[in-house]
């Protein structure tokens, strides 16, 4: 069944997008109020992360006891362990962008489901930033 892996990916993506929507992470006002610790603080997104983390922290070790995934040859986990400047600089740059508009990558994509000019603007800028950075990184490494 060649179609099974991508049907599984579609299902996983759908659950993820539904989760982002139910959690209202697709509402930048809610995200920015979460980040506004010293103003009008909305703690909700801490519980989104907590919920996702608990479910994942329980299930991931159980899943990794398997020799291989159900629909692929092997698990593809990040192998790098060293903490370098690149990791921190990238995180800081991403955080500035996230704080400026309240959009991280998941909500940018799920928001295509009710696209308007503002969402299209963020989406295109995200695509350009991603493509340009991957191009540069592929040249230097």
């Amino acid at each position, binding site marked *: 069944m060649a179609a099974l892996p991508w049907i599984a990916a579609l299902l996983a993506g759908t659950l993820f997008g539904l989760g982002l929507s139910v959690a209202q992470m697709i509402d930048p006002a809610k995200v920015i109020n979460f*980040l506004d610790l010293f103003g009008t603080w909305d703690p909700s997104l801490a519980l*989104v992360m907590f919920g996702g983390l608990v479910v994942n922290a329980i299930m991931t070790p159980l899943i990794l006891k398997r020799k291989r*995934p159900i629909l692929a040859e092997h698990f593809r986990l990040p192998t790098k362990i060293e903490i370098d400047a690149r990791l921190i600089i990238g*995180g800081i740059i991403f*955080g500035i*962008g996230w704080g400026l508009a309240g*959009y991280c990558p998941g909500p940018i994509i*799920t928001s295509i489901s009710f696209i308007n000019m503002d969402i299209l603007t963020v989406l295109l*800028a995200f695509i350009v930033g*991603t493509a340009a950075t991957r191009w540069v990184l592929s040249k230097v490494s």
Partner: protein
Amino acid sequence: MEIINFTPISSLIGGGLIGLAAAFLLVAKGRIAGISGIAGGIIYPENKGDMAWRIAFVAGLILGGLIYQWSNIGVGVEHIQAMASTPTLIVAGLLVGIGTQIGTGCTSGHGICGLARRSPRSLVATLSFMGSALVTVFIVRHLVGG
């Protein structure tokens, strides 16, 4: 500090769904549900043979949003508005794209999947983007915006 609009139940349910989605992708495909990495592999592919599942996952992210709207659960999307001007949205989108590719991950890959695997790299990345996002909102709302 003033606490507003706290929605603990829908946040926990939404977070739980995200966790389930990530666990399902791992057990089925052996992959980490990091959105910036999955999308990056479509936007600027390194391996063309690795595209189908990525496109299916991204299509699912949009489908999940549509199902939310069709099913009338939750508060809907009609009230949602961008919180920034067009130039700021452009800068923000660029920085999110650049930063997640340099730092190899975002809120999902580092923040949820990485922390669940107790990855020290993901902890450092999460503290970096959380910290800079908090500082950015503080500057924009309380120093510049006043």
